[in-house]
């Protein structure tokens, strides 16, 4: 280290001193280096020992936190996971802590925590999903949709395909809850087109479509699943329920009958089974009342006559009970008056146009009287249901 610029001007004693100085400095630096090595070794030993202990504590608190989280004790999980993070701040534990905070109802804290995590990995599917849920919780719809979509496009560990489908369904559910049915339907149709051949998933999608008011698509999926053997009861029951709501009583009766006959029907909740039974009874009765075209001519005429009598009695009852509504019923009364006073089934079966006129008059009578005199009961009510969409009743 020592420089020898002045070498030529030095006396012999000074040159000797300079050599000694060089040796001394070299030895000093060597000693310093050795001391550094010793301190480094001691520090490394201390560090490794501490790291091992820290890792042990981290593992202990992390496992406790995860157990608490899984056991539905998010508050305990928050404390435990926070302790774990004090020792080793790993990302997974941070995500778990943020999740625990969210589960514990600390929405603001959880959002802040997830935002921090999002900052470092904005494309992380899990983080975006959690942020979407938190935004949904506080009613921030734009942020929720944004993060749900980012979660759909984001990266996922493991089976990303399954994660994305579940998120799409969750997003659809959220949109339904916000009455954004069109957007929800779009997501569900994408999910349906990409769904694997798994009845449970298809049934889930169909149920959501049903909630999104897309009963046609829902019915299609239910029926496709119900065509499997063995047919899953929820699909059969769902198809029957939707067909019933759409006025497709032939189809409804068929599926509801199959559902009630299935040995798996016992797994359905009692209330649901009772509702299914009611729907099946109504559908069956409607099919008995409905003057379908494919019936034998005599039988069809008899059903039309029965409907005529039923509707006429309903009109008379309504007019008697509500004399103030005479003017509103006048048009109907006129139409009724124009019908032949006496008709037999045999006569009617010869006059298809008259059949159609009577059927339409019966339906119109039920509709008008229901508006003036309130909802009908019994077969009148069933006639009214048929009147709502008579074409659908026998639709396959």
């Amino acid at each position, binding site marked *: *280290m*020592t*420089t*020898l*610029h*002045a070498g030529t001007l*030095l006396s012999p004693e*000074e*040159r000797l*001193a*300079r050599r*000694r*100085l*060089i040796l*001394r*400095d070299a*030895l*000093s*630096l060597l*000693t*310093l*280096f050795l*001391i*550094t090595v010793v*301190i*480094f070794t*001691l*520090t490394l030993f*201390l*560090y490794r020992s*501490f790291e091992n*202990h*820290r890792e042990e*504590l981290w593992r*202990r*608190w992390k496992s406790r936190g995860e157990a608490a989280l899984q056991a539905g004790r998010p508050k305990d999980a928050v*404390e*435990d996971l*926070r*302790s774990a*993070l*004090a*020792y080793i*701040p790993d990302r997974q534990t941070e995500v778990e802590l943020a999740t625990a*905070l969210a589960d514990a109802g*600390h929405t*603001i*804290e959880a*959002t*802040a*925590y997830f*935002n*921090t995590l*999002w*900052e*470092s990995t904005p494309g992380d599917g899990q983080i975006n999903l959690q942020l979407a849920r938190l935004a949904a919780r506080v009613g921030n719809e734009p942020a929720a949709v944004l993060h749900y979509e980012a979660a759909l496009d984001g990266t996922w560990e493991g089976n990303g395909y399954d994660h994305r489908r579940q998120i799409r369904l969750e997003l659809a559910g959220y949109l339904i809850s916000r009455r954004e049915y069109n957007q929800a339907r779009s997501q569900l149709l994408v999910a349906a087109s990409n769904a694997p051949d798994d009845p449970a998933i298809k049934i889930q999608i169909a149920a959501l479509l049903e909630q999104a008011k897309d009963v046609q698509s829902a019915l299609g999926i239910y029926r496709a699943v119900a065509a499997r053997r063995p047919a899953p009861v929820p699909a059969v029951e769902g198809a029957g329920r939707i067909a019933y709501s759409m006025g497709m009583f032939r189809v409804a009766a068929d599926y509801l009958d199959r559902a009630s006959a299935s040995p798996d029907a016992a797994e359905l909740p009692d209330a649901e089974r009772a509702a299914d039974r009611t729907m099946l009874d109504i559908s069956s009765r409607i099919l008995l009342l409905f003057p379908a075209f494919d019936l034998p001519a005599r039988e069809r005429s008899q059903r039309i006559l029965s409907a005529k009598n039923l509707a006429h009695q309903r009109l008379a009852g309504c007019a008697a009970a509500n004399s103030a509504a005479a003017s509103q019923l006048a048009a109907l009364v006129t139409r009724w008056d124009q019908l032949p006073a006496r008709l037999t089934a045999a006569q009617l079966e010869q006059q298809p146009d008259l059949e159609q006129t009577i059927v339409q008059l019966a339906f119109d009578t039920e509709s008008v009287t229901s508006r003036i005199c309130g909802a009908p009961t019994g077969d009148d009510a069933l006639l009214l249901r048929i009147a709502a969409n008579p074409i659908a009743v026998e639709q396959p």
Partner: protein
Amino acid sequence: MTPESPTDFQMPVPVTAGAPAAPDSAGIPESSPVSATARTSFAATIDRIAPTRDERLFLVLSIFIGVISGLLVVAFRIAIEWIKILSLGSAPHPGQLRLLLVPGIAGIVVAALVMWFFPAARGSGVNQTKAALYVYDGYISIRTVIGKFLTSALAIGGGHSLGPEDPSLQIGAGVASIIARNLRLSRRRLRMFAPIGAAAGLAAAFNAPISAILFVIEEVIGSWSAAVLGSLVLAAISSVVVMRGFMGSEPMFRIPSVTLRDTRELLAYAVLGVFGGLLAPLFSLILGFLRPRMRAMPRGTLYLQPAVAGLMVGAIGYFGFPQVMGVGYDVIDQAMHGQFVWQMLLALVFLKLLATTVSFSSGTPGGMFAPTLFIGAMLGGAVGAFEKHFFPGLTGTVGAYSLVGMGVLFAGFLRVPLTSVFMVLEVSGNYSIILPVILANTIAFLLSRSLQPVGIFEIFTHQDGLDLPSMEVQREESALHIEDAIQPVAAPVVQGSDSIGKVADILADARAAALLVQLPDGSWYAMSPAELNAAAATLTPETPIQRALKPDRAPQLFPDMPLDSTLHYFPRWPLLPVSNRASRGTLEGVVTLDDVLHRYRSSD
């Protein structure tokens, strides 16, 4: 290392190292153990036989100092954590009896160690390092380093509300001092090693080299000195490399990027700056009030003060606020993640202030940096959460306000505005916060200074009976320049080609004390009447005056140069011409010794 006993190196070096001087009441040694004359003699010899030795050793040793300081700070941090886990448990929470007892017991042990073995380990370490630089020729004893390490680790790990940064700074300075002493560097070099080690220690403690360098420049050295800047950087970088090798390179705190969607939001940060500017002097005031009173108590109570302080801190932790115990970085992180409501944050501000005040005033070794950051972060979080509650349109997160709050109190309390800005950037690794930080820190700094003109380190210095330079005052002192003393040219001005006779006539007519000769090359010569007379006596009157001049020329001086730079020319020149930088040879005026002295006398 060079042994402190006599060596085989037979240079005249009467070194008396080995016995540390007795510390005074402030825990600072009264004098360096190496006699000044011995060191001067040794330095003179070295200057002769190896004139560049010190300069080169200086840089190499800076790296060693950085590495060793970094290693010791890593060990120090681990020691604190070990002690904390062993004494307070791996997850302290309110209601645990150990929280109540451990800080008190730690206080007793620390007090005994300080009183019996390590009296110089008291306090934070910043002023002790400044004292080493300005009073003790860079001397910090090895006992002080060991004592600081042990007692600070025990106190902080035991729950006292203090931080590890200032002790790390002193440990680094001590390492530098020990190494430099044993290499027998010149006194000037020796003195400069303390701040270099301080920068290394602080850089490792904060994992922030720029802030450490700036702090040492702002608070310890007081000026940008090219002589030490290179070594400061080398030492700081070396120590941070070591620290990151062990602890990783992640920034201390992480918050999302701050996007100022509307510049009006800066007003919200300005409000935070105002709160910081009000809280900082309050903190100084309480510390400045309590510390001397506790120190003035009978000596016997000094054994008990850390224990009582520990008991108070423990009580705060036991009854619901364990967050105030120890360093508190994890709590700062939680605040930055918005895990506390503003009422809790506000409670932590005042409880931490109380805990830190009693811990520090009791003489327990430990630093003020971490508590300052803690209080600032909680204040920032509280103000941010409060503002966001009433102005939900604000886009900044509570974390961003916490981060800015840290810088705000750092600037207002420690009075290091530049360091405070870079510290926030470095500990968060987040540059996007810079605008709010600069604004809020500046407001806090200016407000705090107007309310409490004397900075906290200066207050401690006066309480310790020392008279160290105030860096804050130094920074604001305006140096005088030549333009402050310059006078119009009243002396006769002649050309070099003019004859001696003509020049003599001009001088006689003017009755001036000197004349200026302008030479063909644009240079100037200031001639006294005596010199002219001497020339006239030996040369003919027709001889051009330039032939009578001595070979040297008047120095080139310009109006913007420091005024003191003229002083050493006056023994040679009766007056000094001051030139225009843009036009060589054009005179702006002249200065005489009387002008300069008059200017200095009237500069108050």
